């Protein structure tokens, strides 16, 4: 540990003020939410069984808590904290009306997108498109954070 400390100190430190990019802000928040939650889950292991839903719940909750500045984050938080044990199925397939019109197909796809995005059904198309952009980015961040957590603890 000390060797690590020494080697880190040898690194070049910039004099700029700490500029945190949003991705690392998110990652920090995310891990700070998720890890204690997992720990707590683990501690409670003796009393209750950890099932998949709980872990997923924590995972989603951490995402929602770290993304409060976005509409989808707030919606996700609402959905999670409403204590519904809904299984979050992201691959819902609905039978949508097929129209052969070119615009109709695009409309369909927009609807599908709305299903994917938490809270997408209540947004209009423009809002949804901009929300989807950062939802994707934060999903990516979440994925890499999870990967690292899993790696670190195996």
């Amino acid at each position, binding site marked *: 540990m000390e060797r690590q400390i020494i080697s880190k100190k040898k690194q070049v430190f910039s004099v700029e003020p700490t500029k945190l990019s949003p991705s*690392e802000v998110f990652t920090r928040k995310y891990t700070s939410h998720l890890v204690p939650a997992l720990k707590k889950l683990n501690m409670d292991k003796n009393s209750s069984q950890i099932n998949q839903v709980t872990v997923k719940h924590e995972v989603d909750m951490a995402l929602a808590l770290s993304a409060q500045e976005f509409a989808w984050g707030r919606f996700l938080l609402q959905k999670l904290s409403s204590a519904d044990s809904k299984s979050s199925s*992201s691959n819902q397939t609905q039978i949508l009306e097929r129209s052969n019109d070119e615009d109709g197909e695009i409309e369909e796809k*927009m609807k*599908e997108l709305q299903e994917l995005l938490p809270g997408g059904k209540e947004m209009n198309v423009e809002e949804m498109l901009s929300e989807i952009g950062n939802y994707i980015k934060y*999903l990516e961040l979440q994925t890499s954070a999870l990967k690292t957590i899993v790696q670190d603890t195996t």
Partner: protein
Amino acid sequence: MDPPLVNDSSFSPANPSSYTLSEIWPFPVNDAVRSGLRLAVNSTPSDKDVSTAAAAEESTVTDLTAGWGGRKGRALNSEEDESSKMVSLSSSGNEVKDSGDKKRKFCGSESGNGDGSIRPEGETSSGGGSKATEQKNKPEPPKDYIHVRARRGQATDRHSLAERARREKISEKMTALQDIIPGCNKIIGKALVLDEIINYIQSLQRQVEFLSMKLEVVNSGPSTGPTIGVFPTGDLGTLPIDLHRNIYEQQEANESRGSHPEWLHMQVDGSFNRTT
């Protein structure tokens, strides 16, 4: 298909000598319009239709010019539309109903005909078809006048303006999304891009699910149980820090974004200041 917009009988000037552009057209216009007007004006005005509508004719032209001059400012035009008189209403009504992508003939006074009421219906139907992608090119009958076509860059109808603005916003966002999603740059067409986006989101969500399953396994495994639980609450700060370091390093390796190299050092510096 349409009756020729300018014919000999359509020009009945009140004052043949007053044909200077500045007099007739007090508003600043672009060259196309000016040339169109001038050319039409310089043709031989015939006296066939010297009627009481002569005075109305000039006012027609003036109102037309107002309508056309104000075309640059779209709001002006729509207001002009409402406030113009009946005769010029038909002519400027023609303008308004035509949506932006259509090519128009610029000529002196379109509906110089006495009635001038024929046109609006024809134009309205074609204006209503503005949503359709085909452009209606008006036939160019060889006449004494040289017809100048000016393509309108802007739609003039309030509705189509709003729609156009909305459509542009949507396509802006689509291109922004294309930049985010890997491999989407080469795809052309909204539908395919949307397909890609949907697939990508679904695969990301599946990945998260898979990882959380894995996490659950790891969490509940006997080998890792004590590892997580061992940290006393006071020292909980160290675990996230190490995780952060790993995560950031991984992220850097994965994404290879060279734009913020300093944050890593700053973050580490901060953390170690805390512990030392």
